[in-house]
């Protein structure tokens, strides 16, 4: 597709942030945490969700790391998108540049964690660099752009989504710690029953369907 056509289309739908009030900030935040939970409703970020939820301690560490990365990623991606890509008509670079920014933030986080908590670093293992490819971390900034959030809304949405992610991870880890003692039938032990549980959790979150205010 020639770039000129894309440009034309972009101009047709101006990328101006829509007006947001304080109460709608609140709805964005709560909506991102619960109603549109990034894991259970948007089904994003399942890889670390399944991988790092065996122990509560690890889950909290992973949640905090993701919260940091995602919030910073949302802020910086908004800045890049709003002040660099949109004025220069480089919308097609969005995914690419977001990934670069996220990768850099993840690297930074990894260095800090390695210094401050080597055990957490070891335990998070492969999942820490994988935050880069965590679809939630790319998905949420892109959703931000699609929803035309302003800076504060973007940050709140990113923060809310990652709090939702952390919440899901922590609650799931607590469940798995207890389920560790359950007399689960042999074929379902381990990841299988964890998947079933995640499915039932998702089912529970479907109860929020129709809470349009929080979209």
């Amino acid at each position: 597709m020639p770039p000129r056509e894309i440009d034309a289309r972009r101009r047709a739908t101006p990328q101006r942030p829509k007006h947001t009030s304080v109460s709608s900030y609140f709805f964005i935040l709560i909506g991102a945490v619960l109603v549109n939970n990034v894991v259970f409703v948007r089904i994003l970020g399942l890889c670390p969700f399944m991988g790092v939820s065996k122990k509560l301690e690890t889950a909290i560490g992973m949640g905090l790391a993701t919260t940091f990365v995602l919030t910073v990623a949302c802020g910086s991606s908004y800045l890049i998108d709003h002040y660099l890509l949109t004025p220069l008509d480089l919308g097609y670079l969005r995914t690419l540049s977001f990934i670069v920014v996220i990768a850099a933030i993840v690297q930074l986080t990894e260095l800090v964690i390695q210094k401050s908590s080597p055990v957490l670093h070891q335990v998070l293992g492969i999942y820490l660099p994988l935050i880069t490819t965590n679809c939630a971390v790319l998905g949420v900034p892109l959703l931000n752009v699609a929803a035309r959030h302003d800076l504060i809304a973007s940050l709140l949405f990113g923060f809310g989504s990652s709090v939702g992610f952390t919440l899901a991870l922590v609650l799931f880890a607590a469940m798995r710690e207890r389920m560790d003692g359950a007399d689960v039938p042999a074929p379902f032990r381990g990841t299988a029953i964890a998947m079933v549980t995640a499915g039932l959790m998702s089912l529970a979150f479907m109860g929020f369907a129709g809470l349009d205010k929080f979209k």
Partner: protein
Amino acid sequence: MNNSPYILAPASVTAVMLKVLAALLPGIAVYVWIFGPGLLVQIVLATLTALAAEAAMLAARGRAPGRFLADGSAIVTAWLIALTFPPIVPWWITVGGTAFAIVVAKHLYGGLGQNPFNPAMAGYAVMIVAFPALMSQWPAEGLTAATQIGLIFGAERALDAITAATALDALRTGLHENAATATVAGVMGASPAFGHIAGHGWEWIAAAYLAGGLYLLQQRLITWHIPLALLAGLALTALPFWLADPAHYASPLFHLCGGASLLGAFFIATDPVSGATTPRGKLIYAAGIGLITWFIRTFGAYPDGIAFATLLMNICVPFIDMKTQPPVFGRKDGR
């Protein structure tokens, strides 16, 4: 040969479950008296399915089915399913929901005592997500027994004269459809689904559940924490909204008597296996159910929020329990 203690107080799981079933009887009686015998058919269907599913799962795992079938826990699940499903829902929905509850929500986790989710509510949630229309039709006033049973076993439905929505559902739909003009009073006045306080007849069913719940309290099978916190959570959330805007928000009393509030407070949320167990944990857990129930009822798309709220709080239970452990002997003042 066992070790000490060598003497045991008389108690058994079966006795516990039988008492719960007995406590449900007044609610069932009033329900049948108001809505007709459809419920009884559903209870039979659900009970048979539950027992069959339980026996099949136990056999598949190589366990002696007799002892576990006798414990009665599957029957409690079945009765709760029958009571939360609409009484004229087609038979295969009841059977499917019960089977899901027993097989997936209970036995995949190892059976009695190990399920993190309330099986009955998991069965309800699956069915209402899959068949929202069928799961929202309640028998209209004066529906004969024959019609009800006919509907259960596959007769033509979707006649407004035969089916109706529950009060909760009618209220929400009414308010949503004419968002600009409708008021609670207006909607309630216009629909036959409403009675004195909430849904027609529901206040009597609620009273019967309350009686059963008080029996459970008296038998010390449940503690006051969960029922009280759940009802308080629901009422106290509803109160400020109702005070601020009584035209668009239903009263706390409406919420308490409507839907499955009392059934949930005394029989569903109090399920010890999937519920919180510490005193403080029980308060948090139940208040959470009340709060979420109000949100789902007021803003959500489903007729009642108890099931989803229970499941959502079930998710939180292990974490709540972990963080609300009461202080042990000698450590009360944080020593």
